[in-house]
């Protein structure tokens, strides 16, 4: 009887294959769950010690063993926001040029070149940012801004401070370069979904290319552009090596965008291997947990938005 049951068990090729496939797919949920659990357990000593204060305190002091996430969180959010604000107009411009304005034979190679920007590793952006871009930026824009913008009311304080090259604004700019390709390709894709009839109809009544694009095409893809923006924001939030090079690595929160700061990922990258004591390690993992939650929410939102528009 037992032997019969064994034979009846569906261990034929089809079933084996299906099960292997299912197990592999299931591994993804296991991994995601394990990552969350390991971050929570790793961060536990810090959460136990500081409670919710961990998320709002701006103290980060290995000597007194006081740790709070606020500085790193601030740097992460501000540099990513700068990146998104700078990359959006450029990304829209590139996407429009590639899909609407430039000749077909040129569009393909140029698109590939722009996409190659995304393939350049983060650490290369970091080196280039620190050794090439930052000095140039300090001598150019920062010096000029210090003389001309720093005294303006309200926004002046954003541009005060010594022209050091590294800092929040530099990080934002480097991040903007890094997220440009993803923005461009998503917006290009959205543009390609707009039916040609719309273009032809608007050209037919004598509109210029500018009018067609600004008044018909762009409003038609508002939703996908917003989704792309959030997705790019998610990318920027988690970026590590580039930021570690150019943000300056200072645990502080200043109004000026020229001042060195830090981000969650940069703090972890810089301090993890030199961390002294359990509480320090736990606090760094706690920062990781914060980053995980932010990116999860941001990316989840982006995916929902992009999917809804796609349907």
């Amino acid at each position, binding site marked *: 009887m037992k032997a019969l049951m064994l034979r009846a068990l569906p261990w034929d*090729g089809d079933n084996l*294959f*299906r099960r292997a496939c*299912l*197990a*592999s*797919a299931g*591994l*993804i949920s296991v991994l*995601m769950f394990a*990552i969350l659990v*390991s*971050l929570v*357990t790793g961060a536990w000593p810090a959460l136990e010690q500081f409670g919710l204060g961990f998320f709002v305190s701006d103290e980060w002091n290995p000597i007194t063993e006081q740790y709070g996430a606020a500085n790193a969180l601030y740097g992460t959010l501000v540099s990513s926001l700068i990146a998104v604000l700078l990359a959006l*107009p*450029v*990304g*829209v*411009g*590139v996407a429009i040029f590639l899909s609407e*304005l430039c000749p077909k034979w040129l569009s393909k190679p*140029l698109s*590939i*070149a*722009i*996409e190659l*920007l995304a393939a*350049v*590793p*983060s*650490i*290369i952006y*970091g*080196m*280039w940012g620190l*050794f*090439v871009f930052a000095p140039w930026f300090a001598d150019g824009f920062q010096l000029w801004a210090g003389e001309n913008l720093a005294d303006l009311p309200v926004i002046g304080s954003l541009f005060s401070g010594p022209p050091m090259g590294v800092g929040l604004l530099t990080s934002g700019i480097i991040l903007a*370069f890094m997220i*440009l390709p993803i923005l461009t390709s998503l917006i290009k894709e959205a543009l390609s979904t707009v039916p040609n009839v719309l273009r032809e109809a608007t050209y037919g009544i004598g509109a210029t*290319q*500018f*009018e067609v694009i600004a008044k018909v095409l762009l409003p038609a893809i508002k939703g996908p552009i917003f989704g792309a923006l959030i997705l790019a924001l*998610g*990318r920027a939030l*988690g*970026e*590590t*090596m580039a930021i570690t*090079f150019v943000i300056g690595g200072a645990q502080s929160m200043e109004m000026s965008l020229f001042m060195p700061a830090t981000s969650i*990922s940069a703090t*972890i*990258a810089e301090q*993890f291997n030199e961390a002294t004591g359990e509480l320090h390690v736990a606090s760094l*993992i706690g920062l*990781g947990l914060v*980053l*995980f939650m932010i990116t999860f929410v941001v*990316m*989840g939102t982006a*995916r929902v938005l992009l999917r809804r528009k796609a349907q």
Partner: protein
Amino acid sequence: MIATRKVKNLVFKGLCLGATLLGLGILVLILFTLLQKGLAGLHWSLFTESTPGPDGEGGLANAIVGSLMMTGLGILMAAPVGVLAGTWLAEYGQDSKTADSIRFLNGMLMSAPSILIGLFVYQMMVVSMGHFSGWAGAVALAIIALPVIISTTEEMLKLVPRNLREAGAGLGTPRWKVTVKLSYKAVGTGIITGILLSVARISGETAPLLFTALNSSFMTTNPNEPMANLPVTIYQFAMSPSESWNQLAWSGALLITMAILFLNVLSRVLPQLKKRRS
């Protein structure tokens, strides 16, 4: 009136062209910097000698070997699992709720910051084994490559024409054989392309290696030890005041970027070559 409209149109086109030139300019500038600073250190010794002490003479041989090994091991772990998982999504899961949530989680894993993967593997492997190791580095890289392989495999399998499967099934071929012998064969290049892209993606990853493989100044092919690798070496050498280390960092950066760009271009050319041949 017509004049202002024309002017607006021209200005707008100019701005779009400007944005494109800016994007291309950045790529060109980065490549130019890499060539300018990296070429000077491109000697044979780069491939034959190990990393030196500060201000010493040496190469990147141990880092290159370590990177190749960990990337290779990572892909060997990720590719079979990724292809099978992608197959499940495309062939069995399809539009089911389970498949949808796995797709969602896969997307999330794809966009999870790579430094978090490093923290995860650190806690899973480095803490329990008691030391940094090449295996831990390879696992971290595998986790980063996995979601890319899964989604490209799924996308590719969806392209297999329905009648090809039906023809196979009509001959009485079991379903798994249809998948392996017909579908994989039909879209194999696409799947390989996805794997190539994930090789390109993980070979430049630095953050997850910082706390898993760490680095090593010795030549080792034993993945049980901390392992030298290009990205972390570049990071450490670029940040140091030693000039010979800086030079090695730039040369390493040139090597790795060229390799990655080559893989990317190859992954685009490959499907077209195949198309032309058939």
